[in-house]
């Protein structure tokens, strides 16, 4: 039985959401860990207390997202998605050439813009760029692409194409000096900015982003809609001295510089572990959820909007109900430890929800040892309510990285969570009284075929759903491929893309409950799995 309360929502100007009588519809997630075939475990001791990411991307060209899961001290594994549409989740481990040890995470990016997704692999040790060969096979490309993988403890990555560039810029976040045993605090090592070499399709010498404060998540994001993304860095205060959260101005051809207090950037010091972003209030500017220990942060631009906002943010986590600071099931009321975070609409009601992977660092007695993942469903008034237990995803394994993605292409977002010392868990979203949906893939001519830096806008009812296309953030893992929107009860809508160079495409019609390829300059093309 679906309860639609449309009058209220029309009055606030949003999609007509699907809403249960007592709040947002809680989707049903069925755990299929035992049968899904994703048997990866994030192993390792102290050097793998952070990381544990998963990359979700399609390398078999069937539209289904395949998975690459960090293994820590053990080998990482690649899993080819062999699920049927709407069916149970099924993956097969596949020798893709990605079976590296020491992997903390990975992000899929088509670095050489050949239309085949490549993979940036973060490691304790040398980072490795793996060139996609097609058919889910990969080869090392550090030498071919002039990439200096270094020899650090790498824990974060973000990618962008700077204006006019034919080759991407990668930011790599590094953690502490792992050789420091007695006094590792204050030993944060430099983050790196890998920019293209002048006039060549390869990377130049990496630039050290000084100061660096033990980054655990990075995201290129156009926070002020200037057309030029800046680099947000979320840092772990456990190890830095004199540090804080950072926002780097990355202008083409210019030396990176930090936003300053004089420009509005206010000092925030948290155990920064993950970044999720979404334009929650439909004002055109993204909000940022920052994971930490105990209370998490939800930052909303507080400095006014056009014409030139300042990077000043208000913390609205408490007001919105997303502090997610302690377990909500069980008897353990010690504070939580949060890692990967991701905004997605899991019940397709037109409102972005928030998933947070939780897990103790490792026997930290001040913090909850049994720390359930959060699934915070957004209400029409912009606040969130916890539904992880009701949805079935409140696992108390030691979570790290995660991915919400439609793994069986049924329009509902499924979930995979990487756990430390425990098998990764996989859940299939079987819905319930959920709403309608839309999924799109962007494509433009090289370079930057996947259009990193674009904005996708979906006109839904009286509002515009808006999301930025990025590669970065989360905790040690990212995704490429389909971009998902929940539509509530809307059967049709309009969509447009503001491409990375600022060119706004035309509004174009679509029918709900479908996949579309959005090729720059062309009409949306419906796509059907299989």
């Amino acid at each position: 039985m679906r309860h639609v309360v449309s009058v209220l929502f029309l009055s606030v100007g949003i999609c007509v959401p699907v809403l249960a009588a007592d709040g947002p519809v809680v989707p049903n997630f069925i755990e299929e860990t035992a049968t899904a075939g994703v048997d990866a475990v994030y192993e390792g001791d102290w050097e793998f207390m952070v990381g544990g990411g998963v990359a979700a991307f399609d390398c078999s060209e069937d539209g289904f997202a395949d998975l690459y899961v960090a293994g820590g001290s053990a080998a990482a594994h690649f899993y080819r998605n062999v699920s049927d549409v709407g069916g149970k989740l099924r993956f097969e481990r596949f020798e893709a050439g990605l079976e590296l040890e020491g992997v903390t995470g990975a992000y899929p990016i088509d670095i050489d813009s050949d239309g085949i997704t490549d993979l940036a692999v973060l490691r304790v040790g040398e980072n490795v760029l793996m060139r996609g060969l097609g058919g889910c096979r990969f080869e090392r490309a550090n030498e071919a692409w002039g990439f200096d993988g270094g020899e650090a403890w790498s824990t974060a990555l973000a990618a962008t194409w700077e204006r006019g560039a034919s080759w991407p810029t990668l930011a790599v976040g590094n953690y502490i000096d792992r050789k420091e045993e007695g006094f590792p605090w204050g030993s944060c090592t430099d983050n790196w900015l890998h920019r293209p070499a002048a006039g060549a399709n390869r990377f130049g010498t990496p630039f050290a982003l000084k100061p660096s404060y033990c980054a655990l998540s990075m995201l290129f994001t156009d926070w002020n809609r200037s057309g030029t993304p800046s680099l947000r860095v979320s840092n772990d205060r456990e190890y830095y001295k004199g540090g804080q959260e950072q926002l780097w101005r990355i202008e083409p051809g210019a030396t990176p510089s930090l936003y300053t207090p004089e420009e509005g950037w206010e000092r925030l010091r948290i155990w920064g572990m993950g970044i999720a972003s979404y334009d929650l209030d439909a004002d055109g500017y993204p909000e940022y959820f920052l994971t930490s220990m105990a209370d998490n942060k939800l930052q909303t631009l507080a400095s006014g909007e056009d014409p030139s906002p300042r990077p000043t943010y208000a913390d609205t986590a408490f007001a919105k109900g997303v502090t997610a600071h302690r377990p909500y099931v069980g008897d353990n009321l010690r504070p939580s430890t949060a890692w990967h975070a991701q905004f997605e609409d899991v019940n397709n009601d037109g409102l972005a929800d928030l998933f947070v992977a939780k897990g103790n660092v490792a026997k930290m007695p001040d913090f909850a040892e049994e720390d359930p993942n959060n699934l915070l469903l957004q209400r029409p008034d912009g606040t969130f309510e916890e539904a992880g237990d009701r949805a079935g995803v409140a696992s108390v394994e030691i979570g790290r990285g995660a991915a919400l993605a439609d793994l069986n292409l049924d329009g509902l977002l499924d979930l995979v969570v990487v756990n430390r010392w425990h098998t990764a868990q996989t859940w299939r979203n079987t819905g319930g009284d959920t709403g309608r949906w839309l999924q799109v893939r962007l494509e433009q001519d090289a370079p930057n075929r996947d259009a990193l830096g674009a904005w996708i806008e979906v006109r839904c009812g009286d509002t515009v759903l808006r999301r930025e296309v990025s590669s970065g953030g989360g905790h040690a893992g990212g995704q490429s491929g389909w971009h998902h929107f929940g539509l509530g009860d809307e059967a049709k809508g309009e969509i447009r893309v503001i491409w990375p160079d600022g060119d706004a495409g035309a509004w174009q019609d679509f029918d709900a409950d479908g996949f579309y390829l959005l090729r720059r300059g062309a009409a949306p093309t419906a796509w059907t799995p299989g």
Partner: protein
Amino acid sequence: MRFLVHVVLIAAVLGLVGSARAQSDERAVEVARTWYRLTLELVRHTPTYSPPVASRSLAYLGVAAQEALAGGRPSTRSFAGQLNGLEAFPPRPDGIYDEAVVLQGALTISTRHFFSNTGPTGQRAMDAIGKRLDTLVSEGVDADVLERSLAYGQVIAGHVIEWSADDGGAVVENMGFPHDYVLTEGPQHWVPTSLIAQQQAPLLPAWGTNRTFAMPDGATCGVPPPPDYSEEKGSAFHNEAMEVYEAAKGLTPEQREIARFWSDDPMLSPTPPGHWISIALQLLEAEGADAERTVDVLGRLGIVLADSFIGCWEAKYRYDLVRPVTYIRRHIDAKWQPDLITPPFPEYPSGHSTQSGAAAIVLEDLFGATFAFEDETHVDDGLPPRHFESFREAAEEAAISRLYGGIHYRAAIENGLEQGYCIGAYTNGLVTRGAE
């Protein structure tokens, strides 16, 4: 000739003994300094270590260090019988001891216990430091001496740990924030000032009932009531709030620097008690202090810091006063923002003022009333050193920094300092050194 040979031999033996003792003393100093340096990091990087909790652990660590040396040197006196509830330590079994090894045994166990809830990095660091110092102190020491000394150090630590177990502060849950707490009604009383969910209840409301170390109990050095609460312009209370408000608006660069220097936020610094321990470590190193002097200073300073937090917390929850940020936003300027993060507990008196006053009195007794020094505690965090002509000057600056930072009224600062001076006198009454 035989006599001469004997004299030479005796002199040589004495020389060797003296040399060995001097070497052991140097190692003991290294042991004490290194463990303390590590504990300042553990305080900073272990979330439970709010200032009161940190002060407790540092106090017990200091007692263990003092007792480790007290058993072997008549010139170092035991705290047994002087500190509340501390009974005599088991005597040393007969035999030769190496003082550095005894100290290493005591501090290794004590640090592990009083900082047991640190995370994996802290545990790893304690392992690494323990091994490094084990190697240092055992070099050239006979195996039986090593074993005996280590075992006795562990006995010392065990005695201290057992004594600490029922002081009221041994178990701290949820980082000190009670899950259930009923706020006192009335506009004069504390309300949460933070948007952090965990901090909707105040920190450690029962800490003032903990067993004290050197003073009789938490109420021993009570403070007079703060000015009567009033919302009326021109009232003493309103005037104090206006002073905070105006100060914040007109902060000079140096005042802002002072506020930051003494901010000493938990989890971002060694906290206020750790700041004073850091000062002491700097002074001891500069002085080239020997082991007895080192543990005396650190032991007494730890005790007074712990007592001052118990005393201050007793008063804080007795008066339960509203913070400036709450009052000013309600009655003066709804958008007012203090320069510092307002701590999540009642205002009166100021904890930093109480403990800084107490620390200053004790350090005056140990170093002198006009001892000038540089404080480099926050250099690693990018804050330059500050110079002080005396410990009281430093304490007074620490105290007024809370007004500059917008988190305390003047009464909390001035009466907090006075409370600290009172508490410090009890620690100064302890006998820690005597004729050899």
